[in-house]
């Protein structure tokens, strides 16, 4: 024992210990996970699980179909002849092999022995399990009418049915589709394109009555009729008529009518496959009943997908299945922090050339209001349902470009007061349409550029979505780099996703986790830090059960900011959790050199400073000296090891031109010199910049003060813009001159310079306390609404003063970072190690 300890202490590399751990791991028996169902929900869960805990399980998958996992959503394009089966395979056989998954294809599991913990397939194959995942999907509902078993009567569910329809279309002429829902219409459209005469029989009064209101349903019917489909609405099927040889000849209705048919497709709905679960004694009620952890009544057995009943709802669209997969994987990985709370659904019909979209409660009722735009001749209909100032439902026909946006508003549940006037005209009407105002992804050519930062065009994105089976904006970002830099084209990418994958599109939910290290949202992290007085990174990661030991490059800077802004003078600032610019207090350039921008309050300098700047530029061979947009002077191309000496020689303070922090207060010359100036705007700017020195914030903060409404300091595009008028000062907030130009909104008018400081300081403190990291003021205001800001900052004087005091308190005594480093702080950061050979 003693010997061992000594030996361990002696080895600096710790290699022997690590090796023995590894050996232990490989000897340790892995748990056995058996997945029943080789479809999208089951395999998505496995994929999520492999990402979280690749070594935890030995995985076995049973699939009743003889194919690897394919994209069931794209069966309609296959039927329509727009894609081939190979195009829609999501996980080729090699994927299973690469991940060490044992795959039993063409085997149906018929028995679960919960006592022995073994599943048995129809061919006698047995597999033991420690955890079992049921993803048995659903079956088409077959109407219990005479003749349902005749030849030529099929359902529409899998690739087998699709191929049967394609075959039938070659020899048969008259098709009747029973069911005017999404699947039925897609089947009818596909058969029509394959050359058949198609009639759709539907019990309801209009098509897609669960997805559309009556007006939109009629528009849809009209345009499908123009494509040659016939419709029999309000008809109930009584019997399928035999032609005498056991093949179907016609459909007979309750009212006595008949429709000729040599192919009948039943698409009247789906039924969760619960036979297996029921035979094993698991509690089922229109689906296998699961908890918010996707766990069945047997704690070793989980279930996901269309076979599941969660809070009484069984989902038949893919987005909820994927949300379930994520949560289920989290629990299978023994992390135990995910929770599935149900999904808000949106629908899109995958019939090329017909655009419809619906989400939420689009019918409306008591206490709701409708905004309707109806242009039947132009084939456009839009209905938005609003309740309590929030969008609760949308139904779009003909022009669905804004579907993704409405869906986002709906899921976020934000108030739409400020958007109400333009809501109907979509995202482009509020100027939020991405690069160059393009809002119609569908109308774009494949060669059109979507992401200007990374040069990604539409075709590349569409190809990646199809080839790699991408379903989320994050996936697209990772694989194509589109929307991964400035993010201004995110909306456009969402639209492309939506038009490419239809209802399988997964909107980035509002409850977005900070990053992959946690499922917590920014709001939850902030709240925990505040309510539990967390003061350093470790406390946050421990308390919120981060998945990674020390976060990542995304969450660490955010957490660092939340700590500092919540507990000023108390929380520990961690330089290693700051982006290089904020750690080094200079701005990194593409060649690894830095830029140095000294503070020049209000853009005012003097001959002394200019001389020193010139001397520094000479002494350190600064390759470029440039005037910035913020009325300062930038020395570009300074080597890291020269930074501290440069600052020393400059003898000026840091301009914080590199941080998520106060940047600059731009001013005009104002009443001191200008013949139009009404107030001393330059002095006001200097005072504001002095007051806000060293202020960290969720994102950069820029101010401007203009001396008259001519607004030479461009205060209209600043986070806080101040415009002098003869009788006082007007304050504007939430402007932005960057990625997407945003005009600042009027906050209030004040009389004195002290009030300017108090009101703008209070607003900035509110932003500092409540905004999410990397939200500019415009994003923050968009989330909470300008009325909220006014209530907190303008109307409530006591709250305003309290905010202002908290701002001053948190800035009190903060040192100028350059002076601190000249005095020796963080010395090692700037000194490279000289290698002596």
């Amino acid at each position: 024992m003693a010997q061992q300890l000594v030996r361990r202490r002696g080895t600096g590399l710790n290699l022997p210990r690590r090796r023995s751990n590894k050996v232990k791991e490989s000897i340790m028996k892995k748990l056995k996970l058996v997945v029943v169902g080789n479809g999208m929900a089951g395999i998505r869960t496995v994929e999520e699980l492999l990402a979280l805990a690749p070594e935890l399980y030995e995985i076995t998958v049973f699939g009743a179909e003889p194919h690897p996992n394919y994209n069931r959503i794209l069966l309609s394009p296959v039927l329509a002849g727009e894609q081939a089966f190979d195009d829609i395979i999501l996980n080729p056989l090699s994927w299973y092999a690469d991940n060490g998954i044992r795959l039993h294809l063409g085997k149906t599991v018929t028995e679960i022995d919960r006592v022995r913990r073994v599943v048995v397939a129809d061919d006698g194959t047995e597999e033991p399990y420690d955890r079992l995942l049921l993803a048995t999907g659903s079956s088409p509902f077959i109407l219990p009418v005479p003749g349902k078993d005749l030849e030529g009567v099929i359902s529409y569910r899998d690739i087998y049915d699709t191929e049967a329809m394609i075959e039938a279309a070659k020899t048969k002429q008259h098709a009747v589709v029973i069911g005017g829902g999404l699947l039925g219409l897609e089947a009818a459209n596909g058969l029509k394109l394959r050359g058949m005469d198609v009639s759709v029989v539907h019990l309801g009064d209009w098509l897609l009555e669960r997805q559309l209101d009556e007006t939109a349903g009629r528009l849809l019917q009209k345009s499908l009729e123009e494509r040659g489909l016939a419709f029999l609405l309000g008809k109930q099927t009584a019997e399928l008529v035999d032609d005498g040889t056991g093949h179907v000849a016609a459909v007979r209705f309750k009212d006595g009518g008949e429709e000729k048919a040599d192919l009948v497709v039943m698409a009247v709905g789906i039924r969760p496959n619960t036979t297996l679960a029921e035979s094993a004694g698991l509690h089922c009620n229109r689906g296998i009943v699961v908890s918010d952890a996707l766990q069945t009544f047997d704690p070793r057995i989980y279930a996901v997908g269309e076979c599941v009943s969660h809070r009484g709802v069984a989902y038949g669209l893919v987005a909820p299945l994927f949300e379930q997969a994520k949560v289920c994987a989290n629990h299978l990985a023994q992390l135990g922090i995910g929770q599935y709370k149900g999904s808000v659904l949106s629908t899109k019909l995958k019939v090329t050339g017909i655009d419809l979209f619906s989400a939420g409660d689009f019918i409306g009722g008591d206490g709701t209001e409708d905004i309707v735009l109806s242009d039947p001749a132009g084939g456009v209909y839009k209905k938005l349902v609003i309740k309590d100032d929030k969008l609760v439902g949308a139904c779009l026909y003909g022009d669905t470009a804004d579907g993704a946006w409405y869906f986002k508003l709906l899921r976020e549940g934000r108030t739409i007061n400020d958007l109400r006037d333009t809501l109907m005209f979509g995202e482009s009407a509020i100027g939020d349409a991405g690069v160059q105002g393009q809002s119609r992804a569908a109308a774009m050519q494949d060669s059109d550029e979507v992401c200007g930062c990374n040069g990604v065009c539409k075709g590349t994105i569409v190809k990646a979505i199809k080839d790699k089976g991408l379903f989320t904006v994050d996936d697209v970002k990772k694989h194509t780099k589109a929307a991964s830099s400035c993010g201004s084209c995110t909306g456009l990418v969402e639209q492309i996703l939506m038009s490419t994958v239809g209802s399988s599109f997964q909107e980035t939910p509002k409850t977005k986790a900070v990053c992959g290290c946690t499922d917590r949202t920014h709001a939850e992290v902030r709240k925990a830090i505040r309510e539990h007085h967390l003061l350093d990174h470790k406390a946050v990661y421990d308390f919120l059960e981060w998945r990674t030991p020390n976060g990542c490059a995304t969450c660490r800077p955010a957490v660092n900011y939340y700590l500092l802004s919540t507990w000023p003078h108390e929380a520990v600032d961690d330089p290693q959790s700051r982006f290089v610019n904020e750690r080094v207090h200079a701005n990194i350039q593409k060649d690894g050199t830095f830029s140095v921008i000294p503070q020049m309050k209000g853009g005012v300098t003097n001959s002394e400073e200019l001389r020193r700047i010139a001397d520094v530029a000479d002494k350190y061979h600064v390759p470029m000296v440039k005037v910035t947009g913020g009325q300062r002077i930038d020395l570009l191309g300074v080597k890291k090891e020269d930074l501290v000496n440069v600052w020393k020689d400059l003898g000026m303070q840091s301009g914080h031109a590199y941080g998520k922090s106060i940047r600059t207060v731009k001013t005009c010359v104002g009443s001191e010199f200008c013949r139009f100036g009404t107030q001393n705007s330059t002095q006001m700017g200097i005072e504001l910049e002095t007051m806000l020195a060293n202020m960290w914030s969720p994102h950069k903060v820029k101010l401007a003060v203009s001396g008259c409404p001519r607004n030479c300091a461009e205060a209209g595009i600043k986070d806080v813009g101040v415009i002098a008028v003869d009788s006082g000062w007007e304050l504007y907030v939430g402007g932005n001159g960057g990625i997407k130009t945003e005009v600042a909104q009027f906050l209030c008018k004040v009389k004195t310079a002290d009030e300017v400081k108090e009101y703008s300081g209070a607003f900035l403190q509110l932003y500092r306390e409540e905004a999410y990291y990397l939200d500019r003021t415009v994003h923050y205001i968009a989330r909470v609404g300008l009325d909220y800001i006014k209530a907190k900052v303008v109307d409530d004087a006591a709250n305003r003063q309290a905010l202002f005091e908290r701002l001053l308190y948190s800035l009190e005594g903060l040192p100028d970072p350059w002076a601190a480093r000249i005095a020796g702080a963080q010395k090692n950061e700037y000194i490279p190690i000289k290698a002596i050979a």
Partner: protein
Amino acid sequence: MNMPVEKPWLRVCAVDDIPLLGSRVVERDAGNVAVFRTAADTVFALLDRCPHKAGPLSQGIVHGETVTCPLHSWNIDLASGEAKAPDVGCARRFPVKVENGDVYLALS
């Protein structure tokens, strides 16, 4: 002083000279080397040049056994030098060891 004679190990600094979850740069004519230290005190060395656009990896944020390049946020695995999927590329690795609290690097 205790340097093994048979290997070209070069003492560069003490472990404590490298900040936890940080790095130091070893200057070298043939390209600087970034020496990283993880939270678990493991030390890694990579050529200070991101395989993407040659960004200085030494200036990135270190998390787990990964560094994120400061220029375009590529994630580079410290142990292998490989970029994390879906990015593809590799930064050169250098043998590094820690003995008695000192960091030794094998440059060649």
